[in-house]
């Protein structure tokens, strides 16, 4: 589960915004998923009794990141599961294959309707990548 050193919440009046950093794109995507779960107030100690594999695409890496996070919200909603483990199997600028691990009977305290493109940035830093995202709550 992401902690304060891995993502930082940014002030937003109505919704929630955060920045997250990773050493490479794969880590960035995993830590962004953890940040999403932390914002939803999910438990950090899920049993990881269910696993799902997903493939996501997007016209660029920003779209890919938003689509990945929205895919997690979709799976949560449809299967009523919560996820705490994320592994990137393959990633490019426009394609991601990843696995999610979690448990049924999701215990999600705070609602996120969707991850938005508002103010969306993925920036290259000297030592990795940083993304800024706003989620609709």
């Amino acid at each position: 589960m992401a902690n304060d050193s891995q993502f930082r919440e940014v002030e937003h009046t109505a919704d929630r915004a955060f920045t997250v950093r990773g050493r490479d794109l794969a880590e960035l995507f995993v830590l962004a998923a953890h940040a999403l779960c932390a914002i939803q107030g999910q438990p950090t100690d899920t049993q990881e009794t269910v696993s799902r594999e997903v493939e996501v695409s997007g016209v660029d890496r920003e779209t890919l990141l938003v689509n990945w996070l929205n895919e997690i919200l979709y799976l949560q909603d449809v299967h009523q599961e919560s996820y705490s483990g994320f592994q990137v199997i393959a990633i490019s600028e426009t394609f991601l294959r990843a696995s999610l691990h979690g448990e049924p009977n999701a215990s999600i305290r705070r609602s996120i309707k969707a991850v938005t493109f508002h103010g969306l940035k993925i920036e290259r830093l000297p030592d990795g990548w940083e993304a800024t995202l706003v989620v609709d709550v």
Partner: protein
Amino acid sequence: MGKPSPTRTIARSDFKRISEQVWEIPRDFREDMRAPARLYADEALLEASLTDNSVEQLVNTATLPGIVKYAIAMPDIHQGYGFPIGGVVATKLPDGIISPGGVGYDINCGVRLLASEALAEEISPFLNDLASAIYRNCPSGVGVHGEIKLQDAELDKVLVEGARWTRERSLARKEDLEHTEEFGAMPGADPEYVSHKARERGRGQLGTLGAGNHFIEVDRVTEVYDETVAERLGLFPGQAVVQIHCGSRGFGHQVCEDYVARFQKTVRDLGIELPDRELVCAPFASEDGQQYFHAMACAANFAFANRQVLAGHIRRSFEQVLAGKVLAFDLHQVYDIAHNMAKIEEHEVGGTRMQVCVHRKGATRAFGPGSPGLPDDLRDIGQPVLIPGSMGTASYVLIGTLDSMERTFGSTCHGAGRVWSRARARKMVRGEELRQELKSRGIAVRAGSISGLAEEAPQAYKDVSRVVDVVERAGIGKKVARLEPVAVVKG
């Protein structure tokens, strides 16, 4: 004036005062603006709007291709994503754009008002039981499923028929549908343009409240400002009424997600330059624009059906708790409004009547007397407008005006508008203390999440009375009645 970049902070001095309640950022403020931007506010609300990025978001919407007159923001404006909350943009058809972000993820989030014939004081001895029954009968919480499971063919019917679908299940009365915006079914819905994922999210969620700022509230009518209109709406002082605030649940979220993601490529292909990627759009008449509109209408209908099923659950709760104890507990529908929607309407622009696509993102249609689309029994008085306040504070019933048709494409505000972030609200307010405070004021609270309760604390919002006073003084809505809560049910 120079040509500031989209990132420049907007100051009060950038506004030109048009009238007591109307402030304008001229079109030449930024090179990419295609129209001026107008904000409805008094001095204090104008200052409040400058404390976050909401005015910049308003200016961004003034860049949308095909925009007519001006980008408009209501006094409950606050920072959203893409559009500000409280934003209204109309684009000229057929070539003007439609933007999924201008409707938002909770397509047809809206408010329904039901009214009993009983006084609030008659039901007050049973209030705790009533709040518990509503909480029990109306499933709430994140991603919650309801008792209705829709197979594909039945889901298609919901998406086309909206609230009308519930008549077969005896969950709607004829007069409920007549007193619902679009009569409970938005035209243009075509399930063919809805994704498999949206279907999967929607099939179990009909008749559920959800979480976040959605609520069911039992209120007392504490003041009537316009006796004639109130009487026509069946409202009187001291009366017990019920508000339902929710939308299209995961179904609507998925429809918006699908098209915002898809339109990232559309704007690139069409060479449409935008200051924010959440504003992605497509010409209304294009294949992309039409497909989004068909899918959005499906989500709007899902929301109308959702509020209708919840209304049925609430009527059942009233009967379970009050039958044999209170005589006139039956609930009639005052009206049901949408405050996140894009609609095809005819308005006058520059002396010419034209068809426009009106985006209302956290804004309410407020059609004046004689307008098309109103039920026969209300046509002479105008459309009822339902303005929920923040939790524990007043809400208002307004009536639409002729001036709103002329000035704001028949639109007015939608609520109080946030001023504190959720993080700040959680830091400043303890959920349990808030629950106790509401209880000490005689308000029964049933909430699934205590931290969620803190996020919706009244301190986190603007004063709804001030917001409503501005729209009334500006002539874009007229006060009819004030409501105050006696029971609040939240996910």
